[in-house]
C-alpha cells in the first residue's frame, strides 16, 4: 500500500515534467508486441473456448452446453471444488492470520519474522506433484503421522479419514494456502497504527474491545480479500489434486483435464462450457477482491 502512494506521486511527477508531445502513432507501436502477445496467447484461446461453448456438435449456435452444466455430476464437481477451495481458504486464512499476527504484533522475537516470511515464500511455491508426494508420506495409509497415531491407538483410516477425499485434499491445500495468507496479510497488520490502540486505551477500551471495534473492522476487507485470493488459488489447482487422488475425485479441474485427454463428456462443447464456468467463478472472485482492496486502502495507508 505504501507502494501505491509513492507510485501515484511519481506518476504526478512524471506527468508534470512531461513535454507536451502528442502521443503519436509511434508511441503506440512500442506497446504493440506485448498486446499482440496477450491477444494471441490469452484472448484468442479464451474466445475460442467461449465460441466453442456456444456450438453444438454440428457447429450450430446453441445454449444447450450451458444448460447441460446443470446436470447432477457436473454441479457436484463445481460444488466439491468450491467447498474444498472455501475450506482451505478459510482454514489457511485463519492459521495464516494468527501466525502473521504473532510475528507482527504478538511480541515474539524480531528474528522470527524474517524466518517466517522466508518459509512462507518457499511453502507457498511448493505445490503440485511433489506436495502430493509429501502428504502421501505423511498422511497416506503408511504415512508417518498415520502410523504414529495408530501406535498411539488412534486409527485415522478406521475413523473414516482418507487422504484421497475432501478433507485429505483440503489439508494438503492448506500447505500452500496458509503461507500465502501470511505473505498477503503481514503488510496489512503492519499498517495498523499504534496511535489507534493508544487512543482506544485512553478511552478505556480493553484489548478485546480494541480488536472488536477498531482493528478487526479496519482489517476485515484485507482479510476477506486475501481469503478470496486463497480461494482462487485452490479453485484452479489441478496438479496437486490429480497426483494425490489419481483423478478419482470429482473436481472441475480434473473433469476438464480428462476432457482434454479424450472426449469423456461425449460432447466437446460441454467441455468448453465447463472451462468458461471456471473463468466466470474466478472473474467474480477477482472482482470482489478488487472492490475489497479499494475499501481496505481507505484506512491502511502506511
Amino acid at each position, binding site marked *: 500500500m505504501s*507502494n501505491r502512494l509513492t507510485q501515484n506521486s511519481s506518476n504526478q511527477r512524471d506527468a508534470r*515534467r512531461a513535454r507536451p508531445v502528442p*502521443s503519436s502513432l509511434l*508511441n503506440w507501436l*512500442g*506497446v504493440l*508486441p*506485448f498486446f499482440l*502477445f496477450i491477444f*494471441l*496467447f*490469452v484472448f484468442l*484461446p479464451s474466445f*475460442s*473456448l467461449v465460441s466453442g461453448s456456444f456450438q453444438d456438435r454440428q457447429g450450430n449456435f446453441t445454449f444447450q452446453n450451458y444448460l447441460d452444466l446443470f446436470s447432477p455430476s457436473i454441479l457436484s464437481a463445481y460444488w466439491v471444488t468450491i467447498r474444498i477451495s472455501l475450506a482451505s481458504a478459510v482454514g489457511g486464512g485463519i*492459521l495464516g492470520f494468527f501466525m502473521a*499476527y*504473532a*510475528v507482527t504484533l504478538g*511480541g*515474539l522475537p524480531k528474528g522470527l519474522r524474517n524466518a517466517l516470511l*522466508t*518459509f*512462507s*515464500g*518457499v511453502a*507457498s*511455491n*511448493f*505445490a*503440485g*506433484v*511433489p*506436495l*502430493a*508426494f*509429501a*502428504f502421501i508420506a*505423511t498422511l497416506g495409509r503408511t504415512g508417518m*503421522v498415520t502410523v504414529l497415531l495408530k501406535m498411539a491407538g488412534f486409527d485415522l483410516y478406521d475413523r473414516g479419514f482418507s487422504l484421497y477425499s475432501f478433507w485429505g485434499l483440503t489439508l494438503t491445500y492448506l*500447505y500452500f494456502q496458509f503461507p500465502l495468507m501470511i505473505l*498477503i496479510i503481514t503488510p496489512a497488520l503492519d499498517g495498523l497504527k499504534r496511535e489507534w490502540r493508544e487512543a482506544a486505551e485512553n478511552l478505556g477500551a480493553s*484489548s478485546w474491545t480494541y480488536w472488536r471495534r477498531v482493528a478487526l473492522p479496519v482489517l476485515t476487507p484485507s482479510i476477506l480479500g486475501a481469503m478470496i*485470493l486463497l480461494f*482462487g*488459488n485452490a479453485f*484452479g*489447482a*489441478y*496438479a496437486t489434486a*490429480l497426483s494425490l487422488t489419481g483423478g478419482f475425485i470429482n473436481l472441475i479441474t480434473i473433469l476438464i*483435464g480428462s476432457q*482434454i485427454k479424450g472426449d469423456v463428456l461425449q460432447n466437446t462443447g460441454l*467441455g468448453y462450457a465447463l*472451462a468458461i464456468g*471456471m*473463468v466466470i467463478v*474466478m*472473474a467474480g472472485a*477477482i472482482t470482489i477482491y478488487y472492490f475489497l482492496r479499494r475499501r481496505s486502502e481507505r484506512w491502511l495507508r502506511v
Partner: protein
Amino acid sequence: MSKRNVLWSWFWMFLGGLYFFLPLLATFEFSLKARKGVYSFLAYERVFADPLFLRTFIFSLEMAVFTALAGILLIFPTVYWIRLKLPQLRGLIEFVSMLPFVVPAIVLVFGLIRVFSGAPFFLTNTFTGTNVLLVAAYVVLTMPYLYRSIDTGLQAIDVRTLTEAAQSLGAGWGTILFRVILPNVRVSILSGSFLAVATVMGEFTIASFLVGIRAFGPYMSLVGQNKTYESSSLAIISFALTWAFIGLIQLLNRGRVQTQIAGAH
C-alpha cells in the same frame, strides 16, 4: 505486551511450524527407507542414475530460462515505455497482468490447444512448435509476478531523467533500455525471473498436456505412479530447489519476499 498474548503467539507459531515441518520430515524419513531395515540414500542414487531424470530436468530448466528471457523481453520494454510515454495505459496493463489469475492453467492450456493445434498455426505438429507454445504459456502463467517485480523496480528509479540524460548524450533506444535502465532494475528483474524459473521447473498442468514426459513435472508424476521411495526423494529434491530459488531472491532483495498467485498448483 501481556504474557498471555505472547503465549498465544507461540501457540500459533508452534501449530504452523508443525504443519510446515512435519510433512517434510515424514517425506525425508520415507525417502531414506528404500533399503529394507536401514536408512540409506539408495532412492536418491536411483533417481540421479535415471537418465530420464537428467534429461527432463535439463529440458524444464531450458524452458524455464527461455520463459524468463522471453518474459523480460516482452514485459520490461513495455512497462518502461508505458511509464515514459503512455501513462494512460497503466490501469490497462495492470489489469492484463492479473488475467492469468482469472484463467486457470488448465483452462489456458485447453484454449491454447484448441487454437494452435489446428490451422493456420499447427504449432503442436513439431517439437519446436510445441516448445514455443509451452514457453508462451509459461510467459502468460508467470506474468503476474514478473510484471509486478519489474514495475516495482521501475517505480523506484527516475525513468524520465535517466532517459533524457542518456538521450542528450546521444544514446539510442536500445542503449537506453539495456545499458541505462536495465542495470538500474537488475535486482527486481532477477528476482522476478528466479520466481518464474522456480515455478516453471516443476510445472505439471500445462507441461503434461503439451509435452508430456519430456518435462520434469510429468516425469515426477510418472515416478510417483510406480516407484514409492523415489517419489519421496524427488519431493525432497524439488523442495530443496524451491528453497534455493527463494533463498536467492531473498539474498538479492535483502529480506523482502514476493508472493505468487498463479495457477501452478
